[in-house]
């Protein structure tokens, strides 16, 4: 067969491709993948975080040639994977407190350094609550000291484990248990919250990246890139939550895709505080397409759509698109 044809039926967004060499498929396409997060965990149907965690930790495990230690903050991921005495983790894994995953990981890295085991790598992970709110001081300290840790935040935009309370990563207008859809301004406030990836960038650490569970090639490449570097690194992965978002379990990946295509979740990477690449939007959609399938935004689509709030959300997306240059000409 001719080697001249660079078109392989399914595009570069699929997990695998029988027409491509195995080295060009994702790690997740391999029947020999580690499954660092094993079956039998108690995450909800269609959990984005369980999926994202396996994607990330498998890729890091591969990059570290199997010599990887994971430290976990408190949250869904910790709870659903390790109900005493079971564990779903197929690698060394530690959990201490809600706030201190970054600090514990710093300690593990220091211990490895002290014992001369710099072949063993350290990954810390937590949800948006443990990262953006409760553990922010520890994360920031780890960044400032440039400890040799890859910190991964699985962002599902609220405290899902304890019953969907608002976090610093909850988007404006979203309904949570603590920002109910009542009153003249239903849902979460505009103008509040924290943009954690840009906070990480402000520390000028060697590598900061965002990703979603919808773009696996992109996500794996970013984990690999992060693992090729030393010092503090930060990866922020959007992981839709069917329970907290009020979405169908089967829509988890679709919603992650729509978040990126609408511009509400910009996907990019930065080195030493400067943005170095972005994932361009292919097929831009209005924010409404992303919001409408989620019950946490149902109050925007009552008898008649709340056009004022929708246009404010669209402005946020437009601002991301402009800030990161997400729409360069025509993209396929």
């Amino acid at each position, binding site marked *: 067969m001719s080697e001249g044809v660079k*078109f392989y*039926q*399914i595009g570069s967004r*699929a997990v695998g491709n029988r027409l491509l060499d195995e080295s060009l498929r994702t790690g*997740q*396409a391999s029947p020999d993948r580690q499954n660092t997060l094993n079956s039998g965990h108690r995450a909800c*149907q269609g959990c984005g975080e*369980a999926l994202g965690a396996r994607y990330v930790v498998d890729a890091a495990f591969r990059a570290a040639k199997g010599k990887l230690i994971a430290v976990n903050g408190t949250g869904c991921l910790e709870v659903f994977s390790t109900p005493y005495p079971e564990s779903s983790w197929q690698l060394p894994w530690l959990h201490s407190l809600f706030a201190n995953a970054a600090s514990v990981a710093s300690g593990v890295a220091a211990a490895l350094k002290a014992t001369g085991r710099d072949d063993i790598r350290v990954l810390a992970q937590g949800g948006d609550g443990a990262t953006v709110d409760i553990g922010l001081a520890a994360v920031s300290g780890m960044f400032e000291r440039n400890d040799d840790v890859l910190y991964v935040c699985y962002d599902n935009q609220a405290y899902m484990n304890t019953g969907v309370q608002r976090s610093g990563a909850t988007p404006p207008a979203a309904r949570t248990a603590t920002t109910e859809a009542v009153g003249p301004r239903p849902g979460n406030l505009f103008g509040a919250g924290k943009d954690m990836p840009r906070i990480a960038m402000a520390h000028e650490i060697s590598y900061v990246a965002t990703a979603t569970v919808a773009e696996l090639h992109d996500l794996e490449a970013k984990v690999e890139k992060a693992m090729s570097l030393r010092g503090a690194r930060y990866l922020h992965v959007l992981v839709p939550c069917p329970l907290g978002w009020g979405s169908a379990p089967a829509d988890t990946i679709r919603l992650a895709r729509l978040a990126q295509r609408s511009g509400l979740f910009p996907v990019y990477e930065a080195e030493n505080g400067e943005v170095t690449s972005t994932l361009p939007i292919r097929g831009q959609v209005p924010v409404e397409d992303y919001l409408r399938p989620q019950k946490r935004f149902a109050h925007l689509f009552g008898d008649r759509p709340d056009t004022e709030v929708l246009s404010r959300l669209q402005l946020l997306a437009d601002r991301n698109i402009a800030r990161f240059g997400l729409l360069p000409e025509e993209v396929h």
Partner: protein
Amino acid sequence: MDKPFAITLDVRSSLANHTGSWRSERPVYVDGLPPCNHACPAGEQIQGWLYSAEDGSYETAWRRLVADNPFPAVMGRVCYHPCETACNRAQLDSAVGINSVERFLGDEAIRQGWQLPAARPATGKRVLVVGAGPAGLSAAYHLRQRGHAVEVHEAGSKPGGMMRFGIPTFRLPRDVLDSEIDRLLATGITLQLDTRVNDLTQSMQQGSFDAVFLAVGAQLGHRAYIPAGQAAQVLDALSLLSTVSDGERPQLGRAVVVYGGGNTAMDAARTARRLGADDAVVVYRRTQAQMPANQVELDEALDEGVRVRWLRTIVEIGDGVTTLEKMRLDADGVPQPTGELEQITSETVVLALGQDVDRSLLDTVPGLSIADGVVQVDDTMMTGCPGVFAGGDVVPAQRSVTVGIGHGRTAAQHIDSWLGSGSGPPAPLVDLGMPVEFGQLNAWYFSDAPHAVRPRLEVARRVSDFGEVVGGLDVDTAVYEARRCLSCGNCFGCDNCFGVCPDNAVLKVETGHGYAIDLDYCKGCGLCVAECPSGAIVMEPEQT
């Protein structure tokens, strides 16, 4: 008791926790019906052979193709490809060029000398096929594959029927046709040329045949009374095409009028241009919307300078001039005369008003019924005479080579089961069930890829010779075109289901579809279904 403080249990794997018990629906791999397969009159499994072509396994692809249709190289030139009309990819960018890939496979087979599969062991049954056109040859091939002894009796001096006498060489070169017919006959089919069957009962007894397939076609040009002057040259389109395909080059003059709006009219007009007519005018009594000719044929004819006079009938053919009457469509779309006349120059008038079935043989068959000029058959393609089946242009259906080939295949299946040779009930020509719709696919995953256009001869060269107009794809463009297939309803191994399961509950296996669901852990979220590009997985309720 050497456990740490406050620890009383040993660490266990979460594999002990069978989350499959949460499930109320389970994912199931299916083989959906691709719209191309559904639309193919010849019953080809198009998505299946494209799948093989996608990784360059051309011989495998060709073998899958000829399991249903032994004429890929002919099909790739003359089929009007309803598969492409049905193709879901049209809703993404443009339809997959199925026909061009089919032609590539057909030509490759001729280049490489690939042979059709050998017939199965002899059944001892004998079948007579009357007529060596597309339907007859297709039936002969499929009957022979099933192990029956087949004799084809053809009244003409060459096999091929309308493929040879009705289709001009610039659409179907004769060496291509001969290659495919020779290869088909080489499977052990006896062909008797110049053998007209006049009395079917007698022929059956003489040859001790157990069944008959009648495929005598429709070669009689439909007659219409048009007053014509003594010196006017009036030809029948089929006779013209047949004469030219024999290598003759009749003088038609500089101005030729073709009367009719079907594919034969287009072929006749294009042939007239090649015979030297500066002006070839098609006269059709209705508008383009009602025209039976295929759009591709009309477009190619117009490209070659053929003109069309819509809403006209011929009232008189004089010497060097033909009188037309303008028509108008009434509220029911029926053309009505207006009384307005006009004259156009014409040295020859070619009539292409449809074709009729020659009844001389058919009237000798006891029990066979003819209505509207065609033979009536039941669902199994059997006529009123037991053991006598019919297909192709003699039965009521759209008349095309592809339909004829499909009839031959279907009839062969029914003849086979009628002969009781134990192959089981015939597979339906068109699978039952609804074809997969575009909305069932996850089109996000298919990168945009524009249609590979086949090279065409320059117009100036086209009208000066009878060389083939449409070229073939090369290896690169053929594999590219095959890979544009969206594989509607059928797994093509993209690993999405395997990758997107949050519970690692999709397994890779060696059997079946290559994947299996681990029901111990599948929670039934449906992510594998939602992210399957080709719609090859569905959710089914659990039975409890």
